[in-house]
């Protein structure tokens, strides 16, 4: 693990922080523009998705693991896919 | 071995004949029950065949390969037969899909009850521990299935030539409106309507029971449907 870190001496942690902050500001300000809830939902969801994945990729350094996609799939995509129908099927299905 | 095979074959045939005889002698009082009988017969016959097959296979294999000697690890064999495996996977799939597709029409029929037009709509309300019936659109038509002073059961009287839509709900906890002989049950859920469409029921008396645990007197939630 230590060798790998030396290969990436500087990771863009601060940059990510700034991007996250900016995205949050955009999110909050979008809610004050008064567009309809239905569109707002999708804008906010996609912004949140980007933010969440930034944290996962950089702060949880999935991006720097030897098998990023495997990890991402097993830990995030598969459980999400399992839980999603359980969450939404009862009410909206 | 032959003897065993012949015996088991006779046994299976006899059992199937018994089931067939049992089911052709009973006339179902309504549609739901008729479908139930039909599908249950098919499934029962298939089940009996499967169970007998498993038993026969187990007994035959056990008899044939029984030997109480230990062999050395080198002699252990691994058998592998892809064709056989794929074969029975396909058979199982076809069987299962067949069972699924014969169950579809009655399923849809039952689920679509709320879209049907009936002559009379009766709302059925579950209480702890009795049923309340009321004819929709008729004032003061409500009555309970139990006479509280005498403890008598008051029947819900239906006419054979009329079609009914039962609108089932509950006033307190979840109950289930279950008429075994008419082949249906629906849960009575507070704040939520379930529908049952009834037509062409044979004359007779049918016991209503509660099939969802609803409290101490769950077993004693009397009701009666009388068809005249």
């Amino acid at each position, binding site marked *: 693990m230590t060798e790998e870190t030396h290969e990436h001496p500087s990771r863009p942690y601060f940059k990510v922080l700034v991007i996250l902050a900016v995205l949050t500001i955009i999110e909050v300000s979008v809610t004050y523009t008064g567009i309809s809830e239905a569109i707002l939902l999708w804008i906010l969801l996609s912004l949140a998705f980007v933010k969440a994945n930034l944290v996962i990729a950089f702060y949880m350094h999935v991006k720097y693991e030897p098998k990023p996609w495997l990890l991402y799939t097993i830990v995030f995509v598969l459980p999400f896919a399992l839980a999603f129908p359980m969450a939404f099927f009862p009410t909206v299905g | 071995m032959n003897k065993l095979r012949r015996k088991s074959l006779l046994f299976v045939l006899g059992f199937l004949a018994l089931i067939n005889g049992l089911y052709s002698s009973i006339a179902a009082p309504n549609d739901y029950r008729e479908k139930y009988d039909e599908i249950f017969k098919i499934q029962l016959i298939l089940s009996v065949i499967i169970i007998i097959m498993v038993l026969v296979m187990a007994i035959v294999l056990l008899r044939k390969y029984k030997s109480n000697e230990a062999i050395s690890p080198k002699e252990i064999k691994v*058998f592998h037969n892809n064709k056989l495996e794929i074969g029975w996977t396909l058979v199982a799939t076809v069987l299962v899909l067949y069972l699924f597709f014969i169950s579809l029409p*009655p399923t849809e029929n039952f689920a679509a009850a709320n879209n049907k037009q009936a002559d009379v709509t009766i709302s059925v309300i579950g209480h702890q521990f009795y049923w309340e019936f009321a004819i929709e659109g008729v004032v003061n038509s409500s009555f309970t299935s139990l006479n509280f002073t005498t403890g008598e059961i008051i029947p819900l009287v239906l006419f054979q030539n009329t079609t009914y839509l039962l609108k089932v709900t509950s006033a307190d906890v*979840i109950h289930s409106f279950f008429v075994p002989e008419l082949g249906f049950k629906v849960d009575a859920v507070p704040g939520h309507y*379930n529908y049952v469409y009834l037509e062409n029921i044979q004359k007779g008396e049918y016991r209503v029971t509660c099939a969802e645990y609803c409290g101490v007197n769950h077993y004693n939630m009397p009701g009666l449907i009388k068809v005249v």
Partner: protein
Amino acid sequence: MATERKTTSYWFLDYKKFFGTIDHKQIGMLYMMFSFVNIVFAGLLALIMRAELYNPGKDFVESRDWAGYFTVHGTVMIFFVVMAMGAGLGNYLVPKMIGARDLYWPRWNNIAFWMLVPASYFVWSSMAPIGWTAYPPNAIVLGGDKVDRWLIGLILAGTSSVIGAINFLLTVIYLRRPGLTWKKLDLFTWSIVFMAFIQLAATPVITIGLVMEFLARSLGATYFSTNAGSSPLFWQHVFWSYSHPAVYIMILPAMGLTSLIISRFSQTEVFGKVSMILSMAAITLLGFIVWGHHNFTASPNSPPGWFFTLTTFLIAIPSGIKTFNWLLTMYKGKIVVDVPFLFAISFVLGFVLGGVTGVMVNTIPLDLVFHDTYFVVGHFHFIIIGGALSAVSGAIYFIYSDMTGRMYNRKLAYAHYIFWVIGYILTFGSMNVLGALGMPRRYYDYSVLSILPNYDMIVLFNRIATIGAFMQGIAFTIFVFNFIYSAFKGELADEKPYNIAIPRLWMTDEEWEQLENMEVMH
């Protein structure tokens, strides 16, 4: 071996070891003892219930107590008997199977076990008259702390099972002996992997549900209340999204044990190992999208019943494949007929009987009659008692000499077997008949059904069921007696107690290598 046994024999008499052991075998035995204690008392509850039902009318139990009994019987049997047995046998066997010294986290293993004890205390002390499904308006309106105790007990049990699951997964991933690839991993270990995955993935669901019900009871939160726009059916969905996969938590280790025992005692390898693994994977994944089949009569329209019928039917395919693979494992083998093997056959029988009745329950036109009747009770008892508990009993006989250093009494074991099989077929077979005759479950008194045309049959089959239940009671008494008596007085066991070529539990390094180099014959 012989010297090692003397030290493992009566370790549990030392209180320090009894509480503090972090050895996987000893914790496995603790799990087994724990579930024995629970099964004895939960079984007694079942016998009391059956005795009450022997005659129609009220005999010697009050209705409210009776309702408490079936709640506790169900909950304890599921969480503290069958699941605990799975965890116990997994603890005992998995490290041996994969050649590890212990589990990955020995200490957490101990913590997970001792968490179960308070959990079972809370469930036992609840005696809540709600049924093990705890459907909301009923479970929420009940006063007192009974239901709260039940909820707390289950939350603790869930936490324990998540810890256990992570431990098993880590063990299998990291502690396999060199050369033991995923492909060579035996079927029991695979079954524990799938079981652990289900525990990991499904337990959060029930935790959320339990917490919601807990808050609804204690703070009046409106998760399931109709006035707030929700529905009591919401709980049913959350609950069954866990509880259906939970059924596979119980049955998967039993499947693994059956594969293990049948192949060992037939002295062959399991027929179609790859398809066995794929079947288990299919069962695991499909298990997460079938929960709606518990709600066909609760809301016939939505969510669409046909979807859940289809997915549930699909589970029948891998189950069928597994059944025939087990049977064909015997083909061209050299079968040593001994107690564990007979119990494995009993598993196959129970599994098939439960399986075909399961297909019936899943067909909606039939479910309209069978749902919440004794048919369902018969169905899942066939799977759990006839299936899972048979396999577990067989496995306990299998590893008995390794656990205690002594041999059980074979005659008593055969008596156990005969009473057990006849008992469960009588009880649960007649329960299936009762359901088809229209007797709903959780009925304290069936004399109210006297207007049904087949009332005589209902009485008759209730009596047969009671007789069968008492036969199972006798069988289990013999088992427990044999277990305890032989541990102290049984004859000392040989190094290899059964006349088998490769009892993998007792394998030497050479045997491991031979097994690993074995080629597949076509």
